[in-house]
């Protein structure tokens, strides 16, 4: 039920990822003051955007779960958050590499986007201990959904708050996401963003399908064991 449309999306992912790599390395111009290291931007920023959207999407799916009572929405929300956390790890690592290369420090506290991302990431890391320390599956789904909604709403608030904490409104050094990018860079960036989004959706569907398959397998195994026990019991009574 999760695998509908998986093949075209997977093919599109491969094509767009290949195109994105090609554009990054052969089409996009080298940055004037940062040079080659600036190319990490094409991985880092799309990854961050997709991860944040994934967190918020997880919250929206959680709302659907609580409204409909359909547990499959909780599964969708869980997998979306799970993948976003994996992407988030990548964001923090690539962000640190980029910061080291262009500013000379692994971590900068006066970069509000970086700091907000870390806080959001730390919050979502608690999703796992919370989810897996509740045994009853129904309750697990409900509690996880409540967490996903509260945390999803927290994402935008946190970004506003951290930006407010910036006492000095220093000029944004890297406002490539704004309008100052040259056209070739912007095209490359957009292709990368689409590729990353498609990758996310593909992995999401793949994970959901695999989870469903293993759940079904478990159920069938349980039935098989029950059947075997019944047979043993009848043989014993005979």
């Amino acid at each position: 039920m999760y695998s509908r449309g998986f093949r075209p999306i997977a093919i599109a992912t491969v094509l767009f990822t290949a195109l994105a790599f090609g554009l990054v390395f052969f089409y996009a111009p080298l940055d004037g003051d940062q040079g080659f290291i600036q190319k990490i931007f094409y991985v880092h920023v799309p990854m961050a955007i997709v991860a944040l959207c994934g967190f918020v999407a997880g919250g929206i799916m959680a709302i659907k779960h609580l409204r409909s009572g359909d547990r499959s929405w909780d599964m969708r929300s869980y997998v979306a958050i799970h993948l976003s956390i994996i992407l988030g790890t990548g964001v923090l690592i690539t962000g640190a590499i980029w910061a080291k290369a262009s500013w000379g420090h692994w971590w900068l506290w006066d970069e509000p986007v970086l700091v907000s991302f870390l806080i959001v990431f730390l919050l979502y890391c608690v999703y796992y201990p919370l989810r897996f320390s509740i045994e009853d599956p129904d309750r697990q789904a409900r509690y996880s959904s409540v967490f996903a909604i509260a945390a999803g709403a927290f994402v935008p608030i946190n970004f506003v708050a951290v930006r407010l904490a910036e006492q000095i409104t220093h000029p944004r050094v890297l406002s490539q996401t704004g309008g100052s990018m040259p056209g070739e860079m912007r095209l490359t960036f957009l292709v990368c963003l689409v590729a990353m989004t498609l990758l996310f959706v593909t992995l999401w569907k793949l994970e959901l399908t695999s989870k469903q398959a293993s759940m079904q397998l478990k159920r069938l195994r349980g039935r098989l064991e029950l059947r075997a026990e019944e047979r043993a019991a009848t043989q014993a009574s005979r």
Partner: protein
Amino acid sequence: MIRTATAVLRKDLRIEWRTKEAVPAMTLFSVTTFVLFHFGLDRDTLDGPLASGVLWVTLLLAAVIGVTRLFAAEREQGGIDAFLLAPVDRTALFIAKAVALLIYLVLLELVAVPAFAILLLGPGLFEALPELLLVLLLADLGLAAVGALVSALAAETRARELIVPLLLLPLAVPLLIGAASATSPLLSEGGGGEDLARYLALLGGYDLVFGLIAFGVFDFLLED
């Protein structure tokens, strides 16, 4: 709904009055933390951002203790099941718990803020008091809403005492930013903050959004 909430609240306050479990622990913890900060920072007096940071981090950590204990009686003695059996609105429980936590926090601050002023604060407290009270109130409202939600979320988990701080502290970061930034000019020698309104707006917005969210989703935690 209000009647149910006041009944639960009265019960909670009476339990707290007789057992003296949460509030004394919170206040004691805050005073101990001030002593720790004195030695950790090796400073006799603090002012400005340092003072406001020490004060707010201490209050936040002390609040964690209160949040951990908030649903303890319900969990240990099956109060939730009894509450679910009664034909009353479930949101009443959330309101009662949030108000109880708010009262605990106010009691904590009645001790902790004067203690801080005596032990560590360099500039006088009285000039800053009206603004500081407003900041404290707004931050307490937000903490009470988020704390009641977090406490209910963590109550069903196996490692309750671990989950509460892990959940509450990142969620409270915007509160800390707003409160600490608003307080730091109030506690510095010159006094007077020009950005006060901005941070008060942040605190108010946080209170509103998280109050509504907690109010909206709390019911789902009690379905069985």
